[in-house]
C-alpha cells in the first residue's frame, strides 16, 4: 500500500505494509518504521514505533487530519485528494496578493472608495478580531475597482474585501 501524504505543505510518499492486527511497517524517505497502535478513543491513537511509545491526538477535518504530538501540531492530508477539493492553503498566504483578512474578523474601517488610486503598501481596510486590529494593505499599485465590504461586516480569510486592478509594472511573481 502506498500513501502520498501532505504534511504542512510537504509531500511524502509512505510505503505501508500490514503486520499483525494492529501493526504495520512503513518506509518514509529511506527510514523504516515498525509501528503498532491502540485506538484509545476517537481522538487518541497510542503508537508504538520501534519500541518507543507516543500518544497522538487526531482530529478529522474536511480535507485531512490535524495531529498533535508532544505539544506540536501537524496538518496531514492525502495528497491525491487535496487537489480535488480546491483547497488552497499556505504557500501563497492570504493577503499577499489580495486584500483578504488573515483571520475571521469584523471590518472596522474602509479607507478607500471605488475609483481611488492606491499605492502598494497603502492601508485600505482595517479589520478587528478578538480586539486586535489589523490593517490590510494594497498588494500593488492599482485602481480600486470595487469595495466589497462596509464597516461592521464580518469577513473570513479568502474573502476579497477590495478589488484592485493592477496598474504598476510587474510584481506578478514575487517572493513570499
Amino acid at each position, binding site marked *: 500500500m502506498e500513501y502520498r501524504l501532505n504534511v504542512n505543505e510537504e509531500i511524502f510518499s509512505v510505503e505501508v505494509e500490514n503486520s499483525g492486527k494492529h501493526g504495520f511497517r512503513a518506509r518514509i524517505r529511506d527510514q523504516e518504521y515498525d509501528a503498532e497502535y491502540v485506538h484509545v478513543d476517537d481522538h487518541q491513537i497510542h503508537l508504538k514505533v520501534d519500541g518507543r511509545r507516543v500518544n497522538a491526538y487526531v482530529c478529522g477535518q474536511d480535507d485531512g487530519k490535524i495531529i498533535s504530538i*508532544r505539544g506540536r501540531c501537524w496538518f496531514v492530508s492525502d495528497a491525491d485528494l487535496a487537489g480535488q477539493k480546491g483547497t488552497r492553503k499556505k504557500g501563497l498566504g492570504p493577503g499577499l496578493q489580495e486584500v483578504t483578512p488573515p483571520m475571521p474578523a469584523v471590518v472596522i474601517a474602509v479607507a478607500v472608495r471605488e475609483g481611488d488610486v492606491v499605492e502598494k503598501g497603502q492601508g485600505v481596510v482595517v479589520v*478587528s478580531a478578538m480586539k486586535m486590529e489589523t490593517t490590510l494593505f494594497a498588494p500593488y499599485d492599482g485602481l480600486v475597482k470595487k469595495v466589497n465590504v462596509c464597516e461592521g461586516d464580518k469577513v473570513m480569510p479568502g474573502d476579497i474585501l477590495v478589488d484592485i486592478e493592477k496598474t504598476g509594472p510587474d510584481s506578478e511573481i514575487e517572493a513570499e
Partner: protein
Amino acid sequence: MFKKILIANRGEIAVRVINTCREMGIQTVAVYSDADKTALHVLVADEAVCLGDAEPTQSYLNMEKIIAAAKETGAEAIHPGYGFLSENSRFVGKCDQAGVVFIGPPAQVIRDLGDKITARRIMADSGVPITPGLTSAEADAAVMRTEAEKIGYPVLIKATAGGGGKGIRIVHSSAEMADACASAAREAKSAFGNGDIYLEKFFTNARHIEFQVLADQFGNTVHLLERECSVQRRHQKIIEETPSPIMTPALREKMGRAAVTAARAAGYVNAGTVEFLVDENNNFYFLEVNTRLQVEHPVTEMITGIDLVRMQLEIACGNKLPVSQKDIFGRGHAIECRIYAEDPENGFVPSPGKIAYLKEPSGPGIRNDCGVYSGVDVPMAYDPILSKLIVHARTRDLAIAKMVAALQRYVVVGVKTPVAFLMDVLASDAFAGGNVFTNFIDTHFSSWHPETGDADLALLAFIADEMAASRKTGQKISGEDAILTPWQTLGAWRPGL
C-alpha cells in the same frame, strides 16, 4: 459573607471566580452574551442571565443590563474579573447606587488610578519614581511629537484608560506619530470606551515587574511579593513568573515598600497590582496600578498559598485581612503561560473557531485555569485567552522543566495556540538565563517556526488512524481487541452506578 454574587465576566476568569465561590458556599450568577450560550462559565454557574448580542457594548460592557441581572437574581455583589468593566469607575458608581457591592476598589480610587495621568501625579507626590513623559492626556499628534523630541525616541503612546496591551503603540520616529496616535486612540476607544492617550518614555531593555497588593477597609495594606511579566508579544504578557530572576531581598524590600506606599497614597482597598519598569541598573519606575485582579494572579497564589479571589471577597464584604505582612512569604517558583487562540507563526493573529479537541495537562504542581472545553466555539468578539497554564516547583529550573513537560501534554486542536512556541521559549537558553526584557520575543523569537522533527510520527499516526477507522465495525471499544476476554469486559453485568 455574601450568599450570592454575580460574575460580570466570561472565560477562564469567570470560571476561576466561581471555583472559589463554590468552596465558600457562595451561589454564583453568570452572565453571557448570545455568542456564549454554551460557554464554560455558563455551564459551571448556579444561575446564568443572558445579556444579549455578542457585541461587548451590548453585553459584557452593558452596565444597566448587568446590574439589572444582579438585582433580578438577588446577587449581593458583583465580581468584575479583569477587562470589561473591572476598572470602570462609572460602573462602580452605578453598583453603589443600586445597592450592589462592587468587588474591587471604590469608584474614586479606580477613577484616580485608571486615569494614568492622575496616578502618575499621586505617585510622584508620594515619592514613588515615575517614567519620564507627559502628565496630561493629549489628542494632538504635533504636541506628542514635541514631547517625544524632548525625552527622545522611542516613545510609547498609551491609552490613559484600560490595560492588557490595548491602545499602546511604540513610536520610533516623528513620521510614525500621527498614525500611531490615531490607531491607539481608536483601539482604546473600542476596548475601553475612552480614546484618551498620552506619551511616555519607552525603555528598550526594561523589565516589567509588578507587586500584588491587598488592602482591607481598615487600613491594613500588604504586598504579596512580585511578579516578573517581561515576556510579552504585541505588548501583552504571555509568560509570567515569580520570583523575578533578578530580585534580591533588598530590592524586593524596597519595591514592596514602594508598592504599599503607592496603594496607601491612593486610598486603595481590595486587590490591586502596582506595576513598575525596572531598567538594566535595577532602577524602578512606577508604571500604573491595575485596580483589579490580574490575569497572572495565580503565580502569586502558588508561591504564597493565598487565594486572592477569596481575599477579594473577604475584603469586599467588610472583613479584616486574615493575613499580615509577616505571614506572607514565597515558597518555590511559579510560572504561568497564557494559552491564547492565536497563531505564533503569523504575527500572533487571533485564531477564533471551534475547539475540536482539548486535553489539559495535570499532575503535581500543575494548574490549568481554563475557560473552554472540547466542542465549544471560541468567539471572535472577545479576548483570545483560552486558559492559563501554571506550574509550581521548588526552584526556577524545576518549574521550567515542569512547564515544558506540561506543555508537551497540552492538546488543543481546532484553533491555533502558542503551545509549541511556548515550549521552545521555555526550553531556550535565553529564558533559562533569566535575561528577560520586554523585547525578549522580538529579540529571540521574532521569526519562530515550529520544529518539524516529529513529522514522521505524525505520518504514522495518520496511517494508524486510517487503519483504525477502517477496522472500526459497530461501536467503539477502548483499546479494541487489545482487551483480552469477555470476562475482563464483564459482559452485560452492570458493575456499578
